[in-house]
């Protein structure tokens, strides 16, 4: 049924339809509306036979999901930002144990400085934790990805995180087509755990493995992730046949036919990018976009295939490896190794800074005119003068104090996030 609904409510409804039996919840903005809504749904009985655990931390949340999943039930949690990092140890544990937990991450920046707004620093920091990472570009896709995430997780016994931009999607009221319970039940079979804590058949789960076999056990994890690259399109195809929508999959090409320039991105910024692509196409620029839906496992072959005709690739990403460069860009470069194309790394939209059509136009015009130096990491809308003033100031004193404070003083605004 189509309805005009907040992203978090839509996701909570989708999760409810997937019938998890244990939900562990800990509040952190901007994920909170999801677990609040799930609490309501468990209390009213809309989500039946489900234990809702109010844990004391995100570490506890993921740990409870690990226990519940090992005990053989479908388990779910949601988090953001610092919460995801606080779970870090348990994330690796869930994937190492092969437990098919599903988690929503409402993407948010990582402090310090503390910042509650959107970027991808949280999930990018956890990109190598052995979880599948699927990125939603709209609330419809967020809903659809949750259904597919449970299916994928349980078919391969791997944990899956569905990443959706905090505030930008979680708090956006958009049109969403919500499936019915019957449709979801037909798409998502009952959870049949591959391992289970059962007194009838006692097993030891999580014991030590030494150098004799650790490599092989880890390789198997890698092989499973590669198997997900085959499984994800199969699940997306079945989803399309049942629900009549293209959702999920590994990558999503947009107007790539004859594109000389291709913008690669993840998440909600893709909608804005597609608008810009259309506007530039109107002006005769051969440009397209490639949305990465599945970032882990990394669909190198599909990315290479989608980009092999391009001359320039611009990776717009909402995170970066401090002191190194682009993260997605590095992966794109790896996937396109040997191809005659230039890859630009562009960091954009950190800590809630809006990625606007105007800025994207300026960027892409520079790219198309070969005015952007591909050897350097580029920051969209960076106020470099502010940075330089601060560096000058800091050189002057014996104890210059926190950079963040003086930079905010310098631009004369309060870190409130209110529109400016």
């Amino acid at each position: 049924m189509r309805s005009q609904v907040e992203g978090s409510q839509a996701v909570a409804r989708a999760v409810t339809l997937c019938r998890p039996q244990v939900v562990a919840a800990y509040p952190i903005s901007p994920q909170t509306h999801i677990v609040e809504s799930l609490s309501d749904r468990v209390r009213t009985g809309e989500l039946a036979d489900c234990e809702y655990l109010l844990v004391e931390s995100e570490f506890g949340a993921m740990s409870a999901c690990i226990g519940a999943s090992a005990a053989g039930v479908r388990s779910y949690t949601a988090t953001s930002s610092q919460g995801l990092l606080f779970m870090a140890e348990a994330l690796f544990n869930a994937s190492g144990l092969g437990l098919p937990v599903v988690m929503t991450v409402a993407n948010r920046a990582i402090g310090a400085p503390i910042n509650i707004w959107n970027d991808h620093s949280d999930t990018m920091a956890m990109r190598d934790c052995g979880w599948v990472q699927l990125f939603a570009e709209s609330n419809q896709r967020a809903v659809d990805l949750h259904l597919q995430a449970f299916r994928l997780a349980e078919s391969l016994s791997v944990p899956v995180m569905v990443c959706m931009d905090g505030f930008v999607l979680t708090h956006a009221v958009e049109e969403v087509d919500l499936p019915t319970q019957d449709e979801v039940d037909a798409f998502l079979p009952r959870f049949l755990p591959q391992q289970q804590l059962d007194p009838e058949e006692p097993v030891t789960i999580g014991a030590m493995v030494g150098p004799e076999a650790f490599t092989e056990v880890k390789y198997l994890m890698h092989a499973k992730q590669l198997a997900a690259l085959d499984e994800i399109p199969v699940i997306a195809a079945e989803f399309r046949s049942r629900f009549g929508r293209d959702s999920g999959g590994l990558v999503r090409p947009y107007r790539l036919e004859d594109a000389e320039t291709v913008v690669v991105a993840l998440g909600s910024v893709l909608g804005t990018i597609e608008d810009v692509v259309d506007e530039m196409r109107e002006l005769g620029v051969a440009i397209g976009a490639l949305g990465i839906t599945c970032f882990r496992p990394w669909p190198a072959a599909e990315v290479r295939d989608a980009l092999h005709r391009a001359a320039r690739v611009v990776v717009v990403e909402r995170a970066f490896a401090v002191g190194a460069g682009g993260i997605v860009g590095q992966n794109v470069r790896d996937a396109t190794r040997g191809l005659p194309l230039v890859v630009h790394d562009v960091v954009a939209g950190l800590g809630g800074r809006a990625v606007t059509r105007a800025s994207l136009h300026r960027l892409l015009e520079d790219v198309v005119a070969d005015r952007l130096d591909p050897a350097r990491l580029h920051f969209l809308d960076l106020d470099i003068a502010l940075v330089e003033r601060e560096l000058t100031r800091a050189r002057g004193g014996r104890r210059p104090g926190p950079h963040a404070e003086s930079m905010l003083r310098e631009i004369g605004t309060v870190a409130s996030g209110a529109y400016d």
Partner: protein
Amino acid sequence: MFAVRIHGRGGQGAVTAAELLSVAAFDEGLHAQAFPTFGSERTGAPVVSFCRIDTRPIRSHEPVAEPDALVVQDPTLLHQVDVFAGLKPDGFLVVNTSATLDQLGLAELVETLTPEHVVAVPATDIAREHLGRPLPNAPLLGALAALTGQVSLSSVTDAIRDRFPGQVGEGNAHAAEAAYEHVLTTMRRLTDA
């Protein structure tokens, strides 16, 4: 595409207003999107919300920089936030005030806009009368519907009643209707003059 930006203070319902507007548009078969810019949740802090309405599906998620319509829920924001940033010359402006726009010192700005696109609405007074509480949200939506014609009054009141069942919804719906009438009357006077 018709883009609306709503300026309010935490607790005045700017976020709910954008959401209700999007629901009203959705109910008319249009595509709509509403979203806030959030700070930490604090009563009284400046809040901005956005709503886009279009006949085509909406893909963009950037904030509305150049609104077609602007709603100011609290005139005290005029001195604190650049509320008029990016307002198009043919854009619409709804200000909640029982004073005139001249008295608010907006004469100069109003001159740059189309006269029949600008209205001052005593939304807080109207809300107090119909709702018993000074919540300007619903009357401002009624006023916006009257001024822009982007959504019908009945869609607005349906969205209100759907979101707030019972007496609260009724009171808000009546407040929206009263503001709608207020704007039509004001506009009639303007054209008659």
